[in-house]
Structures are given as C-alpha cells and as structure tokens.
C-alpha cells in the first residue's frame, strides 16, 4: 500500500478493453451522463458482478457511478442500480444527485457514497450534510480552488477527491446535443457520443458528449503534485470517460510514477516523457485554472504552460 489512491473512470466494457489498469488503485464504472451510452456499467446491471469481481481479483477497488441528473422516471432504475452495486460487492457508489443520496440512505446505506463532480460540493457544511447522509468522500465542484478544498477537507471530516487530469465536467443536460430525432429513433444514438465532437467559438473550445459538456482542454496538475501531497490530499482522479484506451493507460502510468516521486519527498522535476504524454493526449491544450482560482481554461505553472496558448 502506498497511502494514496489513483482512480480512473471507465464507462463501459468498450472503454475498459485495452486499458492498462496497472497504474490505478480504483476504477469508477459507468457514465453519469446518459443511460443510453453503449454498455454503460451504470445501466447494464448484469455486467456489474463480473467486472467488480475482476477488479477485486486484480487488487483494485470498484466504484459504480449513478446518473447525474435522474428524472422521476429514472428513479426506479436508480433503486435497482443501488441494489445491484451492493450485491456485486462494489466498494462505493458515486453520487451526483441529492435525491439519489437520499435513496441510498433510505436503503440503509448498503454501499458507501462518494459525492461526484456534479454534487455541487462547495462548502464544508454541505459536505457535512452529505457525510451525515452516508458520504465518506466528496469531489468538490470544479470551481473550488485547491486552497478552498484544503479547508473543506480539514473541516468536513470526509475524504476529498481531486481531479488531477482529464476533461473537466462543465455541465449536464437531459437533451442530447448530438441527436436530431428522439433518442429512441435516431440512428445516431448511441454511437454519436462515442465519437469526438468539439464545440469551438472565438478562443473557446468545449467537448460535447451529447448530454454533457466537458472542457476542451485537459485539466493537468502534474507539476503541482508536490503541493497536493503537502496539502494532505490522498485521492486523485483521472477522468477517463470518452477518451481512448491509450489515454487512460499512458496518462495513468505518468501519474503513477509522478505520484510515487511526489510522495517520496525531495526534489520533484517533471520527466520529459511525462510532459510529452500530457501534451500528446491534449489536442486542445492543457489547463488547471480552477485549481488556482482563475478561469478553468487557463494554465497556471512553469513547466507545461506551453501547452496552453493563454497562460
């Protein structure tokens, strides 16, 4: 054991295939954006026992995400998802919606809750309410700076998860942007969100995944890992949804090595091959501004700033 946890999110068997999970300690299964994502682990409940068992056998923790914006009609499925995740032995449920957190509590909390990116955790008081409802971990909203996260972690009595790399979740909607017809009849569903679609305007680039808006640039805290370690953070996420297997494998390997060095203490310098991998997998550039209280698309740092035209 190395005293920290590196997590990757993986939506489906299609995303899992070819991904080298060796750098990771835990995998968060499923897409919170859309129930129609092909093979979505949060939807295809019969897949859960097998994948959870395989992850456990490989010495990894298995978390299962839940829909980020469940309407009334989705709640019966959410109930089944909670039961299925518990029966499969999942180590936690990732929850974005307060109603889902309440449902989990009503079921007696058969699985611990991790509050996800869309749970709008901004204050330690909110995190405390969620803790009392069964959450043991929170991922603060993207807008929450590292400085604020440190206060939140200290005051709330829950673990705090930090997104260290990947597209930043910026918004959810329950109408798919990529379809012209209703979901059930549009032949573009479900393949459309498996393809890459950017939204560009002026100097802005976003990534649309149909029912989600992500940052165009990739969040990157690689050169700031020593600070994260010093601040006491121990749970780190690489956002692997809608990325390639090479992305998840190579970025994971970089962070595993970099985290080991950061936790070892002493001098910390970025290896060229780490920086190269970060640049190679970020066709629209890197960013980390939210972590430092600036616009999310900006980059704060001295090593990888060349991967962002606006530093």
């Amino acid at each position: 054991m190395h005293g920290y946890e590196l997590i990757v999110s993986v939506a489906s068997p299609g995303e899992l295939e070819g991904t080298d999970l060796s750098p990771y300690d835990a995998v968060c299964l499923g897409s919170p954006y859309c129930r129609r994502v092909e093979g979505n682990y949060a939807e295809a409940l019969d897949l859960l026992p097998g994948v959870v068992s395989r992850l456990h056998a490989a010495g990894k923790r298995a978390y299962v995400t839940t829909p980020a914006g469940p309407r009334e009609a989705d709640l019966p499925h959410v109930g089944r998802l909670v039961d299925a995740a518990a029966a499969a032995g999942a180590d936690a449920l990732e929850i974005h919606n307060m109603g889902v957190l309440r449902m989990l509590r009503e079921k007696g909390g058969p699985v611990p809750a991790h509050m996800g990116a869309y749970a709008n955790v901004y204050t330690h008081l909110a995190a405390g309410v969620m803790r009392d409802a069964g959450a043991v971990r929170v991922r603060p909203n993207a807008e929450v700076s590292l400085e604020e996260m440190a206060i939140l972690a200290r005051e709330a009595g829950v673990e705090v998860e930090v997104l260290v790399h990947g597209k930043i979740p910026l918004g959810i909607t329950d109408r798919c942007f990529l379809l012209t017809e209703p979901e059930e009849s549009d032949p573009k569903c479900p393949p459309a969100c498996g393809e890459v679609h950017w939204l560009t305007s002026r100097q802005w680039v976003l990534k649309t995944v149909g029912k989600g808006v992500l940052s165009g640039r990739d969040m990157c805290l690689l050169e700031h890992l020593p600070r994260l370690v010093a601040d006491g953070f121990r749970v780190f996420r690489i956002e692997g949804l809608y990325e390639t297997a090479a992305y998840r494998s190579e970025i994971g390997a970089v962070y595993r090595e970099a985290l080991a060095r950061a936790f070892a203490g002493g001098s910390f310098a970025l290896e060229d091959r780490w920086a190269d991998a970060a640049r190679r997998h970020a066709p629209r550039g890197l960013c980390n501004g939210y972590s430092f209280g600036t616009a999310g698309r900006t980059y704060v740092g001295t090593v990888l700033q060349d991967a962002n035209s606006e530093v």
Partner: protein
Amino acid sequence: MAELLASGGSMEMVRAAFDNGADAVYVGATGWSRRRAEFEMDDAAIVEAQRYARSAGKILRVAFNTLPASSEVPLFMARTDALYAAGVRDFILTDPGLMMALKNRHPDTILHASVGCTIINIQDALFYKEAGASQVVAECRMGKATMRRIKAEAGVGLEVLVHATTCYTLLGRCTMSSYTKHGHKVDASGKDHFPGSPNRGGLCYRICLTDWDQVGATGEIEASGVELPNRAYFLADDIPYLIDHGVDTIKIQGREYSVPLVGRMVRFYRDLIDACVRDRAGFRMDPWRERMARIVADRDAERRDKTAGLISESLDR
C-alpha cells in the same frame, strides 16, 4: 391560492412589483445571490424593502442562493443574523449546509430551496426538506407528473417559474461561464463575488448563446453556427393547471430587466391569475395572447442587448 412571487433587483423594482400585484418579492443580498451586485441590495435597502412589504401585508424573501467558499460561512452567519435581527425571516438558499446552519440557529426562519438546487425529482425535494426547506423551486423543465408527485407526497411547498430561462444545461450544474472567464472581486465585507460564476454569486456570461461550430476529431466542421439552446420562456397556458394542482408559488424571474417591463409582467400575471380564479370554468387563454406577445417582444429585445453585452464582457481581458 398560489402566491405570485416577483423579482426585486432594486428598491424601485420592489415597489413596482408590489404595486402591480405581487404577493411576495425576492431580492438578493449583495454578493450572495445569482446576479451581479447592481441587481442586489445591501442590508439597509433590504430592510427598507422589508418595511415596504410589511406595510402592504406582503412578504419579502432574501436570496442567499450562492455556493460560497467555506471561509465565507462566518460572513453568511453574520449577515443573516443582522437581517434576522431586523425582522427578516424568509430566505432563499442553495447550499444544504448553509440551510441547516441557518435553520438550527434561527428555527423560525422560512427557507426555500433555490432553483440552483436543481430539484428534478421527488427525492431531491425530500432531501432539501430534511435540510430545512419548507418550499422547493422546481427545475425549469420539470414535468407535470413530477410536480404532482411532489405536491401529493413530499409535504413541501412547490414553486414554479413561469418567467425564466431554460438553460442549455441543468441550471445550477453548469460552470461553462467560469471556464471561459472567472475572477475575484472582494467587497468591503470580505465577500468574494466570483465574477463569471453564477453559482457563486457572480454573473453568467451566457457563452452558450454565442455561435458555436461543431468540429469533428480531425478538425472537419460538422455544423456551423450552432446554438446551445438557452431560451427565455413566458408561460401563461400552464397557469390554470398550476392553480388547479395547488402549486404554492408562481414565480417571475428577472431582476436584470427594466423596472417598467417587470411591472408589466407582474401586472399581466396578476390579472391572469385573478381572472382564472374568479371564473375557472369560463376562463380562456386567447384574449390574453396579444398582451402577452407585446411583453415577450419587449423582454426579448432587452435580453438580446444584455446577452450581447455579457458575451462581449467575457472576452475582455
């Protein structure tokens, strides 16, 4: 009968809203609501608005519906303490932690869970009820079946926005604006207004409303000038339904609009609701449409200008 709640972006707007028939008006405490400071009020103005409301036998609600920093919680407690001491009892909040803290400190406060809570199902409504809210705002696209279920089973008041916008994303769960531009502006009290973040009390630059190109993996343009739909709506046809189903509050959003326009909107809804209640069986919408269309046209013109200004501002360095 359903309460008509209107926006109060200034003292002048508060008076106009009450004088045109609002039963209640909401105002934002400076730095603590989902609009910029020019549409919010300091404590002295809030107290004045509260007096005006009381003198008319009506209600003033004060919005503290942002998601602040943990370090700002003491500021929140001090500010709400001061307003409580001045007689304010009705608050609109988003953060469930702040809700519980305020309710524990002042049990006789009346808390409403803001539209920023993104309440989209009955379990959400129950969660915020348990956090201390006696009323919840329905997410703008909430279906009637969900509204009915909340009314029938949740034991919590329901508020429906009849004039507002349906953001491209779920309102309260969007950070597209601050992704493009985000800053800090700390006022004399120590409160950061977080310009660029509507969730935190700044403003939304409405970047969804600019023209976007959809671009494929290899850079090919898949669609040009696409919009990320964010439409202002003005519901009138639903009013009889909302009344029939016991919706507690019918809300008109719009602190950023001009005072005369807000006054006309409030008068329209007041007249419409009263006509509907007076003669439910004989009520018809058709006679109202022309008057409504004129208001909507003026509203759209103001919104267009405002949106262009916000997008332009988002590009300033």
